[in-house]
């Protein structure tokens, strides 16, 4: 499938990523080339029923997802842009409404 300017800008919106206008044409060409390259996977005979890969060796047994108690030497206030009363502060939601 050929990737065009609109597809790249749509995917950039999905990825929450501003793309400078001057970079768009280059990205269209590069992403088009990458997608064309990976599309060769179509040639592999692996039907709908083929099993997808399960990450990790067979012996991996996931533990219960219980938050651990890793000792922290500094809190999030030391690296967050704005942090108050245990909360990360961000601008208003604004235009997210309706999106």
């Amino acid at each position: 499938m050929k990737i065009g300017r609109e597809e790249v800008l749509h995917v950039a919106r999905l990825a929450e990523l501003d793309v400078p206008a001057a970079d768009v044409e280059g990205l269209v060409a590069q992403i088009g080339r990458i997608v064309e390259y990976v599309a060769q996977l179509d040639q592999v005979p692996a039907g709908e029923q083929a099993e997808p890969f399960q990450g990790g060796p067979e012996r991996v047994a996931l533990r219960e997802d219980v938050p651990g108690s890793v000792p922290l030497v500094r809190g999030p206030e030391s690296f967050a842009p704005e942090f108050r009363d245990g909360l990360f502060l961000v601008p208003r939601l604004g235009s997210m409404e309706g999106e």
Partner: protein
Amino acid sequence: MSGARALAERLRAADASGLNATLHWSEELLLAEEARVAALKGAGARLPLEGMPVALKDNIVTTDAPTTCASRILEGFRSPYDATVVTRLRSAGALIAAKANLDEFAMGSSTEHSAFGRVLHPTHPDRVPGGSSGGSAALVAAGVVPAALGSETGGSVRQPASFCGIVGVKPTYGRVSRFGLVAFGSSLDCVSVFGRTVADAARVLSVIAGPDANDATTVDRPVDPVGAVPGSLSGLRIGLPAEYFPADLDPGVRAGVDRAAAALRALGAELVPVSLPHTGYAVPTYYVLAPAEAASNLARYDGARYDARRIGPAGDLPALYRATRGAGFGAEVRRRILVGTYVLSAGYYNAYYRKAQQVRNLIAADFTRAFAPGGVDLLLTPTTPSPAFRAGEKTEDPVAMYLADIFVSAVSLAGLPAMSLPVGLSEGLPVGAQLVAPAFGEARMLEVAGAVEAALGAAREVR
């Protein structure tokens, strides 16, 4: 002169040479490290790496130095905790030497994609050192440190090890904790080791390996000790996969691997042809799955939780996300996030992501068949299709850059242990051979590599 001061002199000299392999180090921290090791020794601790300087790729978090992942989006970030591998190195008496430069968020094959400038090849400055762990590799190859940690998602330690003429070992997925390794592709990421020699790499790996309660994908299985270098490899069967020796393989690389094969034969090993028929699909499979996982993992860099923040023109939350991420990520990271988002998006998921997961299973099954009873014990291949390429040669064509990993990415997809071993020089440039082992076969692989290293001796021209 103390070991820490001598190390500081070597780091200063490397920085002054323009190598650009370090992102952070200080003499003050080195002296503190040395004092800490002396205190451990005084308390009677067992220190298998006593005084050994080890550099860290700057995607491994430490509390006492910044962790940037070579990205503007994390510039100035200091982790609130240490990675498990750092804690283990320190407990074993190692000195944490420096945070090393890398391709931004470990995405690249040349260490040209760092926000803080490219890393030079240590002996050929017009060439790349490989990537993404190019800073760690360059520091070891330049003799600044005897060992360093890098990380592999798709060959990012073996490939630069080959380009720089050093040893690079990727363990089995699950053998070493990823706790504190900044996530890129979570089903692929492995903390991995560079060493000047097989023995140095093996010593470091033996310290960092083992289960970790903070990483559920580590395996609770004893770490086999690496034995003495065997004098004979009689009874060992080593496979030469036909797909790794294409007609257009660089003649110098081929000569280097032939030299390793001859050494193995002389030691009594039997070399047999094998086939891994899905090898050709490894790079496209990797470049669907790794960007998909990256797009998900890097969603956390949004202007809310880490220092870097840009308020977009609308001044609201979506504008904050888009502006921060657009300004903070470099070109290669942006490209991979876009590809990853594309292959995961509605209408394309089955065609790309699910299909790639199926092909990944076929690639892993190729290795399972090769290592099945009656098959081979190890595989021998080239690590890279050519020696180190020129800086700038592949930056405009991402697919050409990705193909630099053609012999290393299948192993990463299968989660197997593998290593690159220097086997000679081609017109002065190092070339490496790759050994691949079954899951958790690191000890045997390192013993065989030690035997080849001893047999080959000092690096020499092979063409």
